[in-house]
């Protein structure tokens, strides 16, 4: 025990000398800290895009909600149902019921062109026709300004994300649908979820405007519980009058976001890893020169009886501390710069825009710090070993 304490206090005092000597080589140390911060900013920044996109896609999908598509369809775009099938789905076991009947909304999904505010170029904005149960089958849908559209009238409400990213979606303005103009009467939020990217109107109105007759593209339902999903799914898939695909909303949107999140994550990790390699070389340089300028000090300590292991560990701790400084700086910068940064991108599955906010989540910050620590440890190891292996006798006289 005493030996261990003694050893720890050896390490502690060497670390202290190292840290105290930082002001003398502040240039090189600052370069390393900022370099590592740069790596962490890029890693966290790029991954926050993927995290934010995924969060937007899955935020408003409760575990007890489901989506029904035509069998073989991967997205609402290519799905379709008639009025009769929609009724069968709404009446299936497992669907929750409200005062006005089953909590089931048959919906239409089309795209309209609206200019992006930031660039002025056209973007594909989703226009969704919904039924009255639509607000009940999604979580936390709230009108934040204006009012709900009136059923049966050519009016729309607009998700907060869409209103922010695309021009001409303020309450009181009109959107062009074909040759008609429909007034925007309200703005809603959906807990940051994908519905916030959409423009909503009455499904019946949209059917009329797009000559869709009595057809729908998807059915969103609220189930009695998350466990009721299997019952609901089995009832629909075994019904010979239907040929459908049943998914939890959360799974459906997670799948839709998968390609993009995977692409961004892969690229982010690749870029950050390469940068990290570069930063390791930088950290190695800093620590090698830190060790070189302290050759005599380290030899003196060893002459005084400090152990070789203590010196290696102390130098690694020193390098780790520098790296953690960089990691913390990078994490803070990334958080300040990217968290809640509003953006919009294309959801390739539905060919339409999804508005989302970059999300610098705690796990991402942890990843950033872990990467910084790795850079520090690798950057410290070789120089520390070199320092501990110097022959004391000659190093004592080094200038």
């Amino acid at each position, binding site marked *: 025990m005493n030996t261990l304490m003694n050893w720890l206090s050896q390490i502690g005092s060497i670390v202290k000398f190292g840290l105290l000597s930082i002001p003398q080589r502040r*240039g*090189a140390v*600052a*370069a*390393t800290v*900022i*370099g590592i911060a*740069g*790596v962490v*900013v*890029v890693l966290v*920044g*790029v991954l926050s895009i993927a995290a934010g996109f995924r969060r937007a896609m899955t935020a408003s999908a409760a575990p007890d909600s489901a989506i029904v598509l*035509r069998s*073989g*369809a*991967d997205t609402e*775009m*290519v*799905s379709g149902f008639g009025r009769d099938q929609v009724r069968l789905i709404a009446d299936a076991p497992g669907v929750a019921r409200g005062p006005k009947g089953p909590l089931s909304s048959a919906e239409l999904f*089309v*795209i*309209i*062109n609206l200019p*992006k505010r*930031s*660039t002025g*170029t*056209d*973007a*594909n904005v989703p226009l969704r026709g919904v039924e009255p149960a639509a607000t009940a089958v999604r979580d936390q849908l709230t009108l934040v300004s204006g009012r709900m559209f009136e059923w049966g009238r050519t009016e729309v409400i607009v998700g907060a994300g869409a209103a922010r990213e695309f021009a001409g979606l303020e309450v009181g303005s009109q959107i*062009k*649908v*074909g*040759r008609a103009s429909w007034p925007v009467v309200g703005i809603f939020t959906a807990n940051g979820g994908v519905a916030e990217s959409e423009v909503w109107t009455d499904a019946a109105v949209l059917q009329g405007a797009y000559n869709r007759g009595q057809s729908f593209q998807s059915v969103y339902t609220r189930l009695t519980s998350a466990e009721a999903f299997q019952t609901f799914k089995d009832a629909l898939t075994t019904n010979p009058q239907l040929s459908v695909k049943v998914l939890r909303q959360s799974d459906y949107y997670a799948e839709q976001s998968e*390609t993009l999140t995977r*692409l961004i994550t*892969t*690229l982010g990790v*690749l*870029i950050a890893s*390469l*940068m990290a*390699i*570069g*930063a390791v*070389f*930088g950290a*190695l*340089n*800093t620590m*090698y*020169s830190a060790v070189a300028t302290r050759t005599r000090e380290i030899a003196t300590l060893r002459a005084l009886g400090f152990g070789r292991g203590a010196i290696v560990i102390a130098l690694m701790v020193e390098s780790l501390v520098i790296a953690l400084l960089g990691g913390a700086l990078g994490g803070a910068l990334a958080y300040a710069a990217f968290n809640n940064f509003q*953006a*919009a*991108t*294309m959801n390739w599955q539905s*060919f339409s*825009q999804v508005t989302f906010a970059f999300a610098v989540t705690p796990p991402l910050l942890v990843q950033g710090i872990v990467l910084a620590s790795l850079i520090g440890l690798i950057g410290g190891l070789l120089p520390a070993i070199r320092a501990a292996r110097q022959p004391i006798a000659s190093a004592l006289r080094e200038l």
Partner: protein
Amino acid sequence: MKYAHLVWGNLKRKKLRTLLTLLSILVAFVLFGLLCSIRQALVGGVELAGADRLVVRHKVSIIQLLPESYQARMERIPGVDLVVHQTWFGGVYQDPKNFFMQNPVQPEPFLAMHPEIVLPPAQRDAWLKTRTGAIVGRTTAERFQWKVGDRIPIRSPIWGQRTWEFDLVGIYEGRDKGTDTTPMFFRYDYFDEMREEGRGRGLVGWYTIRVKDPSRAAEIARLVDQEFENSPAETKTEPEGAFAQAWARQIGNITLIVAGILGAVFFTILLVTGSTMSQAVRERIGELGVLKAIGFTPAQVLGLVLAESCTLAGLGGGLGLALAWLLTVNGDPTGGLLPLFNFRTADLLLGVGLCVVLGVVTGLLPALQAMRLRVADALRRL
């Protein structure tokens, strides 16, 4: 360069440090190459667009279809040279993850419209003769190891429940380095006949128009939109470049993101290299003093230090760019998601420029420090 041995000797003095610095510069330039290629993959369509081509689509959105009959009406507009249409097929080959584009087209005018698609004449003739024939770009053919004569089964939920079978009659190459050689094209007449009832028979996705005089492109675009004004399917016509740009911008501001990342990378490397250089100079102040004492001019000392930093940047950067080129020469690493992925010559040249800038910027401060050195002070530190 009679001082070459001196510069080289100085770099060799601390071999490890030189190597580490070299490697971090190398990594920066590999990243530069990869990021340029990614940017190209996402926004490259803009540059590949023909100046004489216009894209005509449904005014409400690209997913709404336009009547086939518009083709003849557009051909009658003065200044219009050629009109072809394409339709998004959205098919799946074996697995939804095997994404690539397949569009039905009219073979003859389509090939005339797109000279960047290079198809051997024999294969072209075969396509004209085979109703179920399809051609595919080199990239996709290699990806799935397709050969001419193969039968390709593809399903498309948009156009019906059936599985479509196409006879591969040709594999085309791109005329330019950046040409997308992932799409498959097959015959519109076959498509129109075989698509399910109620799935828009007689309707097509979008049109491409070639104008006789590119300088009149904007005017002709206006004429086309006027032609269909107040009809059930109004159009929006714009140059192919603008269309591609709007697409790219829908993905997000790629150029800004890439520039941001590269900014962070180079800032980092600049710091690392710069601090190494100034350290190298600090360690040698005495020697630099000796050089001055034996008659080197301040400019020569400045030059020596700059030569050293530029050699480092040039070596590291050159190797990095070469490595990036090797890594990107095989094109898209994601297997279909980024068909236009390539490292352009223009970006390569920009990289070379960046090498020089990096060398000068990292060397400048230490070099000035070395130049201003007073001999007496420096010698005392020997």
